[in-house]
Structures are given as C-alpha cells and as structure tokens.
C-alpha cells in the first residue's frame, strides 16, 4: 500500500520534471515530459582508465521494487567518487552493493556484474568475508561497539588474524587511530568505552576501525550527516588524506561536501544513474536537466 503510493508519487514527480535528454546529444533541452525509461543511458563517461571497481548493468530489487536500474559505473583508483541525488533514489542501495551488505536484507536481490580488481564479487564461489575486509564501510550514524576504544579498533584485525602478537595489535591500533586523526585525542584513554566519545570522534573512530583491517576501498554513507560543521570539516580533511592510499566512494546530501572532497560525482535519480563526470564539470556545467535542477536546488 505505502510502497505503491510512493511509486505513484514518484512517477508523477518524474513526469512533471521533464527529461528530454535521453541520447545525450542535445544538451539542456527543456522540452518534453517523458520519465526516464528503462533503456536510459547515463550521460558522461562511466568508464575510467584504471578502475578499482567496475559495475556493469547492476540492478537491485527489493522484492518487486526495482531500486537500481541498469547502472554501469567504474570507481577509479585513489579517487573519491561522490554519489548524490534526491532521497530514495538508491544511493545507499548502490553503495551497499559494492561490499554485498545487501546480502543481509532478505528481500534484496542484485543482478549484473560488479568487479573488484577483475574479480566478480557476486560470483557464487566468492566468500563475502574477505570481500568485506577489502571493501570497508562507514555508516551514516556513528556506530561504535559498546567496547573500549582499543577493542573497537582491534576487533577487525582480531577476527581476520592480522596481528600475530599483542605488540603488533597495539601498533595496528595506533596506526589506524593516527590515520583517522584521532590518536592524539584518545591515546590516554584507550580503555574507555568508544560510546563515550563525542559524535565526531565516534565517526572518526568508526573510520579508524574500518582502516584497521586495511581495506582497498572505503564506502561511506553520509558519514557526516550526524556531525556538526567542525567535526564534518575534520572528517572531510581525513577523507582527502585517505585518498592517497584508498579508493573512496561517498554518499552525501551536501553539494558543498561533494564539491569539496570528491574528484568525480555521480548523480542518481529514481534508481537511474543519470550523469557522471568530473566533480568540477558536474557542478559548473551539468549536462542533464535533472542534474542541473538538483544541484541548483530546484529539486530534491
């Protein structure tokens, strides 16, 4: 019932907000009123030269609901890619496909191909456990374990057996906290509960926890939405530093944040990947009407 209503609403919204740019040849024609249809082709270059991850024709269904529609996208090495779009367009869903977190949702079904360094991560034979160690995830709300700061960081390395001795573990903990810019603030109270930190510190703790298992790709789903501007600035700074060693995909609702931290931006709309391109290009010269409307604040 509720789902159906929502769908109807969206269709109407779509119809109203015109799309006239299916082929991508004619830029910014304001005429026409067709919704994006199934063989819509993304505008901009979805492929890159040295992809870390590469998605081809990815579809996601929640039961009957088609949440991600035929998305092709590469995620480049040592780059930050920002995913933006109106609420409910499928950003989180797409992000969760990249480390198979959608497996934890019973009704969720993913088709298509997603490769991480040439390995198909939806291959039946693939074990998700090492995959998730390679593709880490930071969530919207800071969610430290109700354990000490030290144990929060040590959790991952422990379960993956990354540290042979206590000394090594100590080192991993220190290194991860240092990379997340938290070491100076917490080094004297590693045995205190992680839940006792401030929101911004908690989020950096979660990032440190993700770094501790030494992933190749880090997925972040609105990592700053629960933080104040100062904490946000710190996390953004951190993302910029992490780019040197990691590949990062970040979902955000803040245009400024996307513009500040990312090199590439992908705009999603109702399950479609509408446009993707260099962040500067997307924000200064969007090619699709929907993208333009969104980033200029006329919609979403």
């Amino acid at each position, binding site marked *: 019932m509720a789902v159906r209503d929502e769908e109807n609403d969206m269709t109407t919204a779509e119809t109203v907000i015109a799309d006239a740019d299916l082929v991508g040849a004619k830029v910014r024609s304001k005429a026409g009123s067709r919704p994006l249809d199934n063989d819509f082709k993304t505008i901009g270059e979805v492929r890159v030269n040295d992809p870390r991850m590469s998605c081809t024709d990815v579809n996601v269904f929640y039961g009957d609901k088609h949440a991600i529609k035929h998305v092709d996208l590469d995620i480049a090495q040592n780059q930050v890619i920002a995913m933006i779009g109106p609420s409910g367009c499928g950003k989180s869903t797409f992000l969760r496909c990249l480390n198979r977190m959608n497996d934890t949702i019973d009704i969720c079904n993913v088709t298509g191909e997603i490769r991480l360094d040439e390995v198909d991560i939806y291959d039946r034979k693939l074990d998700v456990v090492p995959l998730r*160690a390679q593709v880490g995830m930071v*969530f919207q709300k800071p969610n430290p*374990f*109700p354990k000490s700061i030290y144990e929060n960081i040590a*959790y*991952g390395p422990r379960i993956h057996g990354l540290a042979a001795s206590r000394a090594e573990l100590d080192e991993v903990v220190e290194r991860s906290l240092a990379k997340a810019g938290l070491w100076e603030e917490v080094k004297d109270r590693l045995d205190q509960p992680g839940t006792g930190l401030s929101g911004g510190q908690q989020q950096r703790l979660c990032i440190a926890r*993700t770094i501790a*298992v030494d992933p190749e790709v880090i997925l972040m789903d609105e990592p700053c939405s629960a933080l104040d501007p100062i904490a946000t600035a710190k996390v953004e700074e951190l993302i910029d530093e992490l780019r040197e060693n990691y590949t990062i995909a970040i979902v955000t609702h803040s245009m400024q944040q996307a513009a500040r931290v990312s090199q590439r931006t992908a705009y999603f709309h109702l399950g479609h990947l509408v446009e993707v391109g260099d962040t500067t290009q997307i924000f200064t010269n969007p090619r699709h009407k929907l993208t333009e409307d969104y980033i200029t604040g006329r919609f979403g």
Partner: protein
Amino acid sequence: MALLTLMAFAFYLGRRRSLTVVGGRSGVKNLHSLPAYYGFYTALWAGLPALLVAGLWLSFEGSIITTLVVDGLPAEMRDTDPGRLGLLVNDIKNLASGNIVSAHVDETMQRAADHLNELRSVGRMALGVVVLSIALAAGALAWRAIGPKMRARNRVEFIVNGLLIASSLIAILTTVGIVLSVLFESFRFFHKIPLTDFLFGLEWSPQIALRADQVGASGAFGAVPLFAGTLLVSFIALLVAVPIGLMSAIYLADYAGPKLRSYAKPVLEVLAGVPTVVYGFFAALTLAPAIRNLGESVGLVVSSESALAAGLVMGVMIIPFVSSLSDDVINAVPQSLRDASYALGATRSETIRRVVLPAALPGIMGGVLLAASRAIGETMIVVMAAGLSANLTANPLESVTTVTVQIVTLLVGDQEFDSAKTLAAFALGLLLFVVTLGLNIVALHIVRKYREQYE
C-alpha cells in the same frame, strides 16, 4: 442490573441535556467538553454513590440483622456464653434458609427464624429502594448541573483517575498485608527460636518440636540444609535452562527466518504454560526412575527422589523465561552494530559472539536472575520429585528438600497454629520472599540499566 440500566439511561439523558443547553448539535463548540463526557458524568453520579451505599449496606446487613434477631430472643436464651449463642444463631440461620439444624427446633427458635427471614426480605427491599432513589437523586442533581460552562471532562477524568488509584491501591495493600502477616508470624517464631539458630543452624528436623517435652528444641530449625537444597536444585535447573534457553534465543533472534520465528516462539512459550503439577509428576514418575535405573546400570547409588530429577525438569520449565527475555534483549541490540561488524568482514557467529552477546549480556543476566528467582520459589516440582529429607549435600543424586517443600509439609495436616513448627513455615516464607525479592530487584535494575543504554 437495574442500576446499570439506570446508568445507561443517565448517560443518554446527560448527553442530550448537554446538547439542549447549547441549542443542539451546532452549539457543541460552546460546550466545555464533548457531549459524551456530560453523559458519562451523569451516569457516574447515578452509579457510584448508589454502588457505594449498596456495598456498605451489604457488608453491615448481616451483623445488624443478627443483632436484631438476638435482641428478639427471650432473655434466658440470650444470657448464655458467646459460643453457645453463636451456635444458636447459626441454627436459626440454617432453619431460616431451610437447612438441617443440629439442635432440637422449638417454638422460640422457629419464631426467631421467621423473624430473621422477615428482616432479610425487608432489608432487601429497603436496599433496593434506597439504592435506586440515591441513584435517581444523584443522577438528577448531576443532570441539572449540566451547563455549557461545566467542566464535565475534567470531572469525569478526575473520577476515573480516582477509580484507577483505588484499584492499584487494592493490589498494593494486599501485598503489604501479606508481607505484614508473614512478618508478624515470623516474629512470633523468632521469639521461640533465636534468629541465628534459624539462619545458621545446620540441622532441620521440625518433627522433634511436636513432642511436648522438647518444644523449641534448639538446633532443629536450622534453615541451612533447606537453602542448600533449594540452591542445588535451582543450580541444576539453571544449568539446564541457561544454555538451552540462550541458544534457542540466539537462534530465534539471529538465524531463524521471520516465519519460523513466528511459530517457534509461541511454541517455546507454551512450556511456561504447562501446569507445574504436570511437570512434577513427569519428574517423579518418568524421569526420576529413569535416572535411578541409569545410575544403577553404571553402579551409582541414586535415590528414587533426586535433586537431579527435580532440577532437570525445573530447568525445562524455566527455559522459556530465559529464552524469551534473552530473545528480547538480543533483538534490542541495534542492527547498526551488527552491520558494523558485518562490514568489517565478520561472520554471523563472530558477530553474535563478539558483538551481540556482549552488548546484550546485562539484559541476559537480568533474564537469568528472573528465571533463578522463579526456580527458587517453585514448589510443585520439588514436592513431587526432590524428596523430604533435609540432607546437607552437594550430590545431585541424593534426595534433598527445599524451602518451599518444607513450608508445604509444615502446613499440611492439622497443626496447632502457634507451635514452633507451623510458625517456622512463616519464617521460611519470609526468608524466601526476601531472597526472591532481592533477586527480582537486582534483575529488574540490570534490565532497566540495559534498556537505558540503547535509548
């Protein structure tokens, strides 16, 4: 019955009047409260005072009538001692209601009985009249008072509030009353037997106290063996219930699909609904002999009533307490913590072992303590399966006895009410109460703490 009709009628009238005074439906917004509240207001006024009077009347009617009847008796019959008089009155009452009487029926008695009947019917009539007229009068007063300014809603809520308070007071006062009575009887017991003997005595043999020359023989009322027995049985029960309950809770919360869960959980909870007597004879008739045979086949001496049998069955009984509460707290562990763990590449069992269980542990502890207090207070199973002999032993194959069993045996049968033996039951009850109350408080405290943590 008549009163209910009257109240319904009053509701209708009150509602209608509220509408009339403001000039029909369109004037409703001029009323202070919704029309229905005026209806309730009138109905409550019609009902409550009348009910109150009826209640008082009925509780005093009996004694007043008896006094009247006694006054009506000839003087020489009245001047006997109270006991005989009581008997006589009883006879008269029996006669009046047409039952068999013990004494010979003579003229005066017959007359007294008739008198009684007469009084009773008059009483009934009067009651009816009084109650109905009170209802009518009060209802009419309330009805007249209705006007647009009257704050009927507030008054109705006030009365309802009062009713609710009264009900909860009854529950609380009953509890307090029970505790006080147990407390007083226990004091009387501790007059006869010193508290220290009771708490620290190692021997329990209340039978000795029955013999006249040894009343209050010291050392016979040591509660230690009983508590040891209780603890042994409860411990065995927890040994069964905690692992099984916890694991089934984990399975239900994290592994089972929603469909299986919706069937399995109620089924598991049925265990809690089985009457304990049924568990009791299962333990006594099926399990205990089986254990004994098993024990003998490997050369162990097992008494036919063993702590083991009682403990095992009691464990089964309290499984649902553990599993249901644990399931709740495990479910209350936020999904975000599980996601965080999965996102780090942890498997499901690692996540449960290292994240979910530690986070849920306080809540689980609370559940276990509640189950323990349930086990300690359990009576029927141990009465039937654990035996009566107060052995101070840690061997689960011997028969032991528990506090509850002893209370039952002390009070079963005809006893003098003030012998140390019967009073001991109250002392045991008090001690048991204190222990389980303590456990409950601690458990609830832990559970509450735990809830706060995730709010």
